[in-house]
């Protein structure tokens, strides 16, 4: 039977459908018009298959795809045009690379004949994207579409996930080809799931069996590997206290008896101090980022280090390991657990409590239950966390709002934190929250953002309005770029260079977009207003008038060891 002859643009639609894609974030333009023309037929009428979310800026398309991917575990997809459309997505692509988020960006490109001529809206996208993608490829012929799309999805979602960019030349969109579906599930130069080394597994188990003060560090790898229950079995069998990285916060439910809190520069006090006391440190699906290690030359020097990671290039990259177990942690953790003795470390585990108590008294209680003064970020986050019972998805922006919300939110379900950890992208929060509402439509999505980050993506109010995306936006407005201001006060002699910010009248902006709005100024109104926001269907912005010059604590100053973490800071 003769094969059906279709255009490259139509082949893209069929290929995306074959990959199980339902939701696309995008923005049309000249070089991607044939694709948008094919998309037209797939978004309405009998053949409706895709939901296309029209964003208001291509950067937001990439961040929304990230938010979608992070909560759903599926690949986020965006379609944009060439040149500026493509370059606008690159911040999101870099963000996805650093935070191992599977997205596929399909960008238009000028026709092959015009490549290299500095044609209108031509940019060497593959050249620019290569260092910040897992894979970047230019589709130059219609007959390559099915293969390239399937390979892109396979690479984006397998092993350590990451972003893929497809640069789709216009001639390849319009030319025709015989349609034949392709399913790539193997690339010979790529080994996404390295085979476990039995000897390394044995050595790891032996170290853990002989440990008196074992300590586990939980990263996003546990979430990406879907290994949350394997983690609990592993920790519980040998009674191993554990702390979570920023991206791994929902890998272990808040309040689990072995949960010792959050790592990092603004994490909890006990896990940072105890890193320097443990005798065996077990890192699971985390990459010893500088925000976690502080000064690497002094980091956990007393400990034997076991590193479980699917990406062997992470081994010994920042911190030297004693035993490396390369592989999918969904396999490696059970393999180690099987060889582990049942054990208890009650005394060691309880030794964390002393530091918890110090942090609680000096930092946590004053942050979440202040007696007087203006509203604080911590108390707002705590109020929302209590009202959502740990069931909501937390999306945040970058800066003080990110640290406060990550610290004081509660996580009972997996895949519950969407944050820009590696790249620290201001402007990430709002579009990522939009994406999260599509990735987890059954869940409440709470965005905490600052006045700086919100304004970097505020055009996405348009997307929220059009889609009625039910994002609960909590604007922690302190009229400052608060985190930079904190550093200026601490390390730059209190010289507040361009961190104070004049804000617009957010109520008027919300009115223009038809978004529900309320403001909290007085502490006594907070609970009722949070409850009202959560009880209201659809999008909602709750502006909170936050104390202007508050600081995130505790804090490990840059270049300091994790055990030099400060519970209070003095600013002259």
């Amino acid at each position, binding site marked *: 039977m003769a094969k059906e002859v279709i255009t490259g643009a139509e082949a893209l639609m069929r290929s995306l459908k074959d990959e199980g894609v339902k939701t696309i974030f995008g923005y049309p333009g000249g070089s991607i018009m044939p694709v948008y023309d094919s998309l037209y037929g797939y978004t309405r009428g009998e053949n409706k298959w895709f939901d296309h979310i029209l964003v208001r800026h291509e950067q937001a398309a990439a961040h929304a795809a990230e938010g979608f991917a992070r909560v759903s575990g599926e690949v986020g997809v965006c379609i944009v045009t060439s040149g500026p459309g493509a370059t606008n997505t690159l911040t999101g692509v870099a963000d996805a690379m650093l935070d191992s988020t599977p997205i596929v960006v399909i960008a238009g490109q000028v026709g092959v004949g015009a490549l290299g001529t500095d044609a209108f809206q031509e940019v060497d996208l593959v050249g620019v994207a290569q260092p910040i993608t897992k894979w970047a490829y230019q589709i130059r012929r219609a007959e390559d579409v099915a293969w390239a799309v399937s390979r892109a999805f396979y*690479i984006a979602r397998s092993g350590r996930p990451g972003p893929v960019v497809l640069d789709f030349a216009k001639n390849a969109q319009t030319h025709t080809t015989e349609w034949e579906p392709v399913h790539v599930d193997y690339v010979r130069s790529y080994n996404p799931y390295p085979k476990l080394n039995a000897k390394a597994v044995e050595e790891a188990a032996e170290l853990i069996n002989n440990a008196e003060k074992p300590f586990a560090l939980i990263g996003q790898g546990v979430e990406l590997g879907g290994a949350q229950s394997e983690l609990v079995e592993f920790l519980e069998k040998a009674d191993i206290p554990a702390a979570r990285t920023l991206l791994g916060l929902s890998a272990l439910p808040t309040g689990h008896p072995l949960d010792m809190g959050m790592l990092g520069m603004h994490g909890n006090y006990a896990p940072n101090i105890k890193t320097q006391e443990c005798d065996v440190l077990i890192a699971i699906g985390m990459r010893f980022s500088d925000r976690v290690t502080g000064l690497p030359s002094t980091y956990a020097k007393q400990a034997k280090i076991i590193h479980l990671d699917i990406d062997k290039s992470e081994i010994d990259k920042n911190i030297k390991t004693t035993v490396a177990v390369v592989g999918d942690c969904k396999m490696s953790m059970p393999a180690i657990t099987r060889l582990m003795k049942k054990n208890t470390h009650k005394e060691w585990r309880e030794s964390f409590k002393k530091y918890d108590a110090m942090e609680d008294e000096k930092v946590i209680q004053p942050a979440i239950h202040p007696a007087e003064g203006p509203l604080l970020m911590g108390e707002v986050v705590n109020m929302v966390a209590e009202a959502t019972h740990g069931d909501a998805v937390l999306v945040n922006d970058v800066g003080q709002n990110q640290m406060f919300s990550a610290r004081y939110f509660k996580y009972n379900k997996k895949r519950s934190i969407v944050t820009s950890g590696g790249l620290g992208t201001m402007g990430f929060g709002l579009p990522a929250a939009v994406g999260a509402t599509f990735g987890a439509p059954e869940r409440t999505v709470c965005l905490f953002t600052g006045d700086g980050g919100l304004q970097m993506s505020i055009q996405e109010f348009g997307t929220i309005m059009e889609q009625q995306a039910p994002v609960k936006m909590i604007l922690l407005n302190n009229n400052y770029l608060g985190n930079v201001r904190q550093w200026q006060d601490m390390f730059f002699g209190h010289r507040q260079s361009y961190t104070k910010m004049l804000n617009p009248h957010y109520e008027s902006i919300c009115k223009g977009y038809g978004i529900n709005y309320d403001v909290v100024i007085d502490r006594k109104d907070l609970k009722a207003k949070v409850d009202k926001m959560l009880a209201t269907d659809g999008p909602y912005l709750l502006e909170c008038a936050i104390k202007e010059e508050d600081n995130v604590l505790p804090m490990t100053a840059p270049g300091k060891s994790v055990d030099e973490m400060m519970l209070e800071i003095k600013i002259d």
Partner: protein
Amino acid sequence: MAKEKKLYTLLVHSENIAGILNQITAVFTRRQVNIESLNVSASSLKNIHKYTITAWSDEDQIQKITKQIEKKIDVVKADYYTDDELFIHEVALFKISTPILMENPEVSRTIRKHDARMMEVNPTYSTVLLAGLTEDIADLFHKLNEFGCILQYTRSGRIAVTRSFEEPISDFLEEQEKKVNGDAE
């Protein structure tokens, strides 16, 4: 691991796809490590290209660079070696002045002593080829330079084969192929 700097040789095997060289060199650039020499050629395996790259580095850094290169999707395998693990060769071409060559008998004696070959002699210039180790080539260059006879000089990147029995990637590829065939059964 010692921070002692050595000349390391990376052997990288990749698929024959445009843009891979760019990805490989970017790994060096990002870490501010200079590539001393670079040679790209076909390998003994169909559709697999071989890159031979030398760089001064300490072992810790070259190990990280090697892993980051191997992480690229279309790179099949990357390994680093020290000189004692490899057979190494380079080629140099010298264009020298024929009048000086004729005037000074030491010039041709030096060329012969280095086992270099005269490729072409004409009244104005002569071409000399030397294949050998980096030091041999450098030595000949310095001597000829002292005679003041060099008009042009060029040296290839290093090429190298390992002293171990096989192409280091043939086992790896076999293993990979088994995986997919195993799945099909």
